[in-house]
């Protein structure tokens, strides 16, 4: 029991990230070394599971098959953490419409499309990639696995301890989640170190968390729910609060020299996928959050794909006033790009739902002319009475 406790406490006491070897690493070599072999039973077991998961992931249809985008993201990672480190990582871009990324102990990195949609510059992407890489370099999966094992041992033993048992159990289980939060903070701080050495702005990391809080508030408002509190850590929270992260990241990066964000090159690289990722987001039935996201993507300048997305969002909600707004947005999108077939379709259906049959027919005819092979073509022919 005492041994179990003492095994659990040292990692908890780690306040600041130090060199990789200090994080109770079983070997001296960092895990990103070329042809690194896992050391010890625990690490070998974790890598075996991670290898199996990676084989399944590689063949999944959810992985985005775009070598150019893949190479671009890989390039950002290499500039973020350095050429020697990034070779130990395989990146998988996965089509899931939420903000997330994760890193397996064997160097498998997953980035979800919802994250690519929300990140606005190479510097922000580099911050996320650096954070995930820091988990890998610090062997957090291994440390976490061992800590969980100790803590659950403690919880099991504590059930025999009569009146003090529940308190110890609660402390042990709480320590799992606190340990997770501690790891997240370590990864944040190490990734800030990478950022300081990289060509990218170190301030970018805190911007992401600020915008995520804004989006979550907008989602809650749109659903008529109370917004989350960001200043309180829940007992079961695995991550520091977004407010906490935004605050310490911006404080620590305040003195660092200002470097480029590289926002234009990022939006160019993502341009091909933007309509697809926007379409995934639009279908999530999240009016408030999507409206916030579109406004933050647009900034000062609403491009045709963003105007189209906003129009679709309003048409979906479908209140009479929404249909009026949607028609305006479709017309603005068509003003920027008159050959945008989907905008003609949206405008036509929007007007028809608003009982403007004649104008709607004209717009739908434009769609039919531009997309004679579309999947819904016979339905639209019927709607315009042909």
């Amino acid at each position: 029991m005492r041994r179990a406790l003492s095994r659990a406490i040292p990692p908890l006491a780690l306040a600041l990230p130090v060199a990789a070897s200090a994080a109770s690493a079983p070997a001296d070599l960092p895990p990103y070394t070329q042809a690194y072999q896992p050391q010890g039973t625990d690490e070998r077991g974790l890598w075996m599971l991670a290898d199996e998961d990676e084989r399944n992931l590689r063949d999944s249809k959810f992985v985005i098959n775009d070598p150019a985008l893949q190479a671009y993201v890989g390039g950002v990672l290499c500039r973020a953490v350095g050429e020697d480190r990034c070779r130990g990582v395989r990146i998988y871009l996965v089509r899931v419409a939420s903000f997330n990324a994760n890193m397996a102990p064997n160097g498998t990195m997953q980035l979800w499309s919802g994250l690519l949609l929300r990140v606005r510059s190479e510097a922000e992407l580099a911050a996320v990639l650096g954070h995930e890489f820091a988990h890998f370099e610090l062997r957090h999966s291994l440390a976490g696995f061992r800590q969980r094992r100790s803590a659950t041992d403690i919880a099991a033993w504590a059930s025999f301890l009569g009146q003090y048992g529940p308190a110890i159990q609660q402390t042990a289980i709480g320590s799992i989640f606190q340990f997770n939060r501690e790891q997240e903070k370590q990864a944040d701080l190490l990734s800030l170190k990478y950022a300081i050495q990289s060509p990218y702005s170190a301030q970018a990391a805190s911007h992401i968390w600020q915008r995520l809080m804004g989006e979550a508030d907008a989602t809650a408002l749109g659903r008529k729910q109370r917004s989350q509190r960001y200043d309180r850590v829940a007992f079961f929270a695995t991550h520091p609060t977004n407010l906490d992260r935004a605050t310490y990241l911006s404080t620590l990066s305040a003195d660092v020299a200002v470097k480029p964000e590289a926002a234009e090159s990022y939006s160019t690289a993502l341009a091909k996928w933007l309509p697809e990722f926007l379409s995934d987001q639009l279908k999530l039935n999240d009016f408030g959050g999507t409206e916030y996201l579109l406004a933050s993507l647009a900034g000062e300048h609403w491009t045709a794909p963003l105007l189209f997305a906003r129009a679709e969002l309003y048409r979906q909600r479908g209140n009479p006033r929404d249909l009026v707004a949607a028609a305006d947005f479709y017309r603005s999108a068509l003003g920027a790009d008159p050959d945008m077939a989907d905008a003609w379709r949206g405008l036509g259906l929007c007007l028809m739902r608003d009982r403007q049959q004649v104008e709607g027919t004209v717009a739908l005819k434009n769609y039919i002319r531009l997309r004679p092979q579309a999947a819904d073509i016979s339905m639209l022919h019927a709607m315009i009475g042909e």
Partner: protein
Amino acid sequence: MAIRIASFLVIICAALSAQPLIAGNALMPAGTSVAVAKSTLTVTPEREWNRLSARPGRNSETWTLDGDDLNGVNFYSIETARALFREVSKRTKPLPRFSSTMLLTDIPALLENSYRIALGTTLFSMTNIEPVPFLGAKGVRFSYSFRKQMEDVSRNGEAVGAIVNGRLYLMSFDAPAILYFDRDVATFRQIVSSARLESLPMAARR
């Protein structure tokens, strides 16, 4: 003593094994008209189907031949401001609501968005949308293919729906693209062709 315990165990086992009989799945006989989805919508299947006791939502029900993941038919009768089926989480994953002012082209989108949210998937595509008369009104028939989140099984679906007196009547059939969809879609189409709206609700489901 040992015999007593053994007979006691037999009684317990018998009590436990009787559970599924109480559960309320039912056999739908061939050639008999039956009201579905707690509504006046009636269908007459030409072959036997199983009706599951678990409903997807308030005014809906599921029939299947081999299990609803292999060949499931869903019947919906949805009034305005209601979702197609029960939400996984009302707070974090609310589903879009049907509105009686929707156009026929909004029905495929309603089903697509509900599936995307409930199944947590981004792989869903409409392959065909066409007009078709249904329940004596203008209706829409559409085909789609999808996968559940991080699952390798490719699934196909077909659905037919119409809005009658402000209420959405919808029937859908989902099955894996391999074997099941092609084998069983004809029996689904037969059910669709037998669909009628009765003027009065038929005998309530027991």
